[in-house]
């Protein structure tokens, strides 16, 4: 190696063996071709070659050999310890609290396959279109199917919910604002309770407030014990001081309050420290009047979710729906929105099913309009009263008001029930006759009237059927025992109810006959009354008898109401006409041949 000593030597003193040094070469100057011990001939150095020499090994890179993966994760609310208990062991029989029927597994068909053997589509909550945060969407997408949860093997329920009820739960769970508007009797209460129960279990909600009419609080309590025995609840007490403690101190996850108490506690309800993950309004038509104290208080409650329940969200006018939505989703419906746009604006937040739609196997409801000829005494009294009444109304001239006409209508309707002088009643004779048949077949019946007095007279006439009475004059504490007795006592064949007290929230599906002794002004209220009997759980056809005295104001009112009855359903379908569903002023004046009209302006 003669030229070896001619290689430039590197300053190696003090350097580790694997340390690199940068050799400064003046590439612009004149370079000599130096011999290299590995090559036979001296290399010709160029800039390109020098770069290659500086980057051993001399191979062309083929890309990365190692594989990499990135991940992203989302953690969901953990169920609170009280709702995160282990499932019941398989070997133990299902718990059967007293008075409850838990479905036995052996009785259940395999719900995972249909008769053709194909797997059934699962019913699951789905994120709504306006759920934009991916984590929120995931939370609902990853929920387990609802079918199978309530078949009696895992969660205690009195009976397995129907598929449409599971769909109702799947509708409610992901929604911040929702109106469950199922026809009465389809189980809005159970659907709501099961939705709340699952959300408590999942940790999606920690507290909830349920607002209901006072007579229904007991019913809610009873249903809660049935459908959510593991969810503690507390009813706001009547005493204001105790209520204050409930507002401020109670940690109970679910609280129940009636509208009247809520209105009285407006300050506490609207307090910034008050916050509910869900506020549920039962019979939400109670807030249909904008500006009413009830509506204002309800809307002021600080809350994350707003659910409204109503089988009759439109009682009188399409605006009723807009006013309920002022709670469900404030700002959703701009002021002065034309009724024809209501459906478009609200449809993704409303779920309404009718019995015809979901319960093809439910026993039918047979409506029997019974036109009764007044007794001679009634007829004479009626004709005299109407004749004198019309004369009086005409004499009022432009001082007449709708109240004047109302008074006459009420007077005539009372005569249609009973002759004021003799007490004769053609309707009562028919009712007694019908009740003979009802009782003979071991059935039970409900009789509705607008007034309490006729109910008292009816009770006397139906004495042999052991009638019970349930109306506003019955003290609150006595009402539940009356209902319990009506259900349990086979000798009690009839219960007499006023529309005001008995038309909402009661479950009387063991009853197969409903008599409307007189008609209410609004078909929606009548429907509510009828549906005390014709509801989920009913196993037999329900016969509804509507007494109408022929050639009277009752018949005229019935004709008007029948013509308007379909508007309610139309609005929730495709109708675009804003029409009053009850009697409006023109309807009332049109009941009689009177020329007087109120003075305007």
């Amino acid at each position, binding site marked *: 190696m003669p030229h070896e000593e001619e290689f430039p030597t590197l300053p190696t003193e003090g350097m580790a063996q694997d340390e690199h040094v940068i050799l400064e070469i003046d590439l612009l100057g004149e370079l000599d071709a130096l011999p290299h011990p590995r090559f036979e001939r001296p290399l010709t150095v160029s800039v390109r070659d020098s770069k290659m020499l500086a980057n051993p090994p001399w191979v062309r890179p083929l890309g990365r050999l190692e594989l990499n993966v990135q991940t992203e994760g989302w953690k969901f609310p953990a169920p609170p310890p009280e709702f995160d208990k282990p499932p019941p062991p398989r070997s133990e029989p299902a718990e059967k609290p007293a008075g409850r029927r838990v479905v036995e597994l052996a009785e259940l068909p395999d719900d995972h396959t249909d008769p053709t053997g194909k797997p059934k589509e699962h019913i699951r909550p789905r994120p709504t279109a306006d759920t934009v945060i991916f984590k929120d969407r995931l939370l609902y997408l990853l929920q387990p199917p609802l079918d199978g*949860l309530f078949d009696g093997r895992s969660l205690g329920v009195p009976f397995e919910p129907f598929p449409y009820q599971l769909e109702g739960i799947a509708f409610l769970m992901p929604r911040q604002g929702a109106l469950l508007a199922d026809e009465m009797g389809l189980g809005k209460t159970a659907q709501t309770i099961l939705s709340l129960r699952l959300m408590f279990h999942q940790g999606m909600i920690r507290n909830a407030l349920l607002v209901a009419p006072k007579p229904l609080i007991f019913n809610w309590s009873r249903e809660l014990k049935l459908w959510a025995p593991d969810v503690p609840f507390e009813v706001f007490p009547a005493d204001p001081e105790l209520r204050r403690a409930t507002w401020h101190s109670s940690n109970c996850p679910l609280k129940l309050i009636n509208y009247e108490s809520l209105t009285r506690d407006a300050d506490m309800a609207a307090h910034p420290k008050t916050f509910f993950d869900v506020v549920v309004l039962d019979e939400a038509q109670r807030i249909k009047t904008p500006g009413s104290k009830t509506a204002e208080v309800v809307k002021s409650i600080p809350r994350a979710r707003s659910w409204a329940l109503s089988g009759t969200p439109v009682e009188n006018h399409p605006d009723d729906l807009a006013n309920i939505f002022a709670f469900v989703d404030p700002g959703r419906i701009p002021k002065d929105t034309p009724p024809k746009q209501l459906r478009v604006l609200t449809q993704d937040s409303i779920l309404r099913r009718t019995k015809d739609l979901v319960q093809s196997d439910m026993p039918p409801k047979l409506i029997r309009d019974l036109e009764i000829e007044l007794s001679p005494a009634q007829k004479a009294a009626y004709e005299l009263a109407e004749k004198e009444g019309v004369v009086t109304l005409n004499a009022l001239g432009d001082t007449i008001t709708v109240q004047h006409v109302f008074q006459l209508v009420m007077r005539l309707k009372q005569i249609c029930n009973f002759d004021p002088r003799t007490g004769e009643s053609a309707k009562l004779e028919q009712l007694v006759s019908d009740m003979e048949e009802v009782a003979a077949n071991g059935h039970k019946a409900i009789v509705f009237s607008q007034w309490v007095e006729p109910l008292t007279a009816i009770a006397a006439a139906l004495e042999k059927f052991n009638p019970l009475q349930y109306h506003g004059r019955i003290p609150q504490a006595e009402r539940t025992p009356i209902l319990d007795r009506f259900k349990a006592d086979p000798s009690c064949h009839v219960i007499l109810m006023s529309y005001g007290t008995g038309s909402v929230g009661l479950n009387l599906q063991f009853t197969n006959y409903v008599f409307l002794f007189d008609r209410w002004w609004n078909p929606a209220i009548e429907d509510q009354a009828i549906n005390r009997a014709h509801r989920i759980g009913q196993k037999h056809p329900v016969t509804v008898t509507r007494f109408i005295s022929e050639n009277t104001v009752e018949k005229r009112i019935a004709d008007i109401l029948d013509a308007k009855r379909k508007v309610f359903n139309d609005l929730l379908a495709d109708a675009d006409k804003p029409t009053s569903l009850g009697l409006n002023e023109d309807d009332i004046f049109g009941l009689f041949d009177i020329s007087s009209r109120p003075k305007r302006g």
Partner: protein
Amino acid sequence: MTDTPLPPASAPQPAPAASVNSGNLGFLSIFQDVGGVLGGYLVTNTWGRPLEFRLSSAVQPNKVQQILYGPTLSEYLHTELIGKTLIEKTATQPGLVIVDSLAALGLRAQINIPVVGLAPEHPGSADPLAALPADVIGFTHPRSSVPLVLSAKFAHDRPEIEAALDKVDQSVDLSEPFVRVREAVSEARKMGVANRAA
């Protein structure tokens, strides 16, 4: 001196299974997507309710990687690369991992948690267990509508797996949560989250 026979060099050292103090279940699904192989991992409680979800980016091996990894590529992707990463990065630890492919059964050698799989469908075969490879053990359990499998190398996990499944609520079917996982992955793709993970 007595010679103790050593296990064959290829056999994995069986890690002792973690005690099943958590009743939680981990559902790991790894599948081929248009962008490559990706995984979704859902941890539920014993009622099947979601506790945590994790998604991987899609891995698309290049030609050289396919050649160099050879036949080990699929198992490497399913177990070491995607499966193990997803499980280790998830805060909520399960007591049992359920996978939906035979290729992911080898995950058991990478983690200290029992792994059980859903037996693959064999449309032509009346008994899906009859068509299983020799290194896989098949069995059934009431919590699964399809037969279950575990690696024969970890046959000793079976009592622990069955004990864990006995604690699962009766409404849960082990095959069902995989539907949720795939829907969640699909949703992630629609919302661009899958790209973000990549």
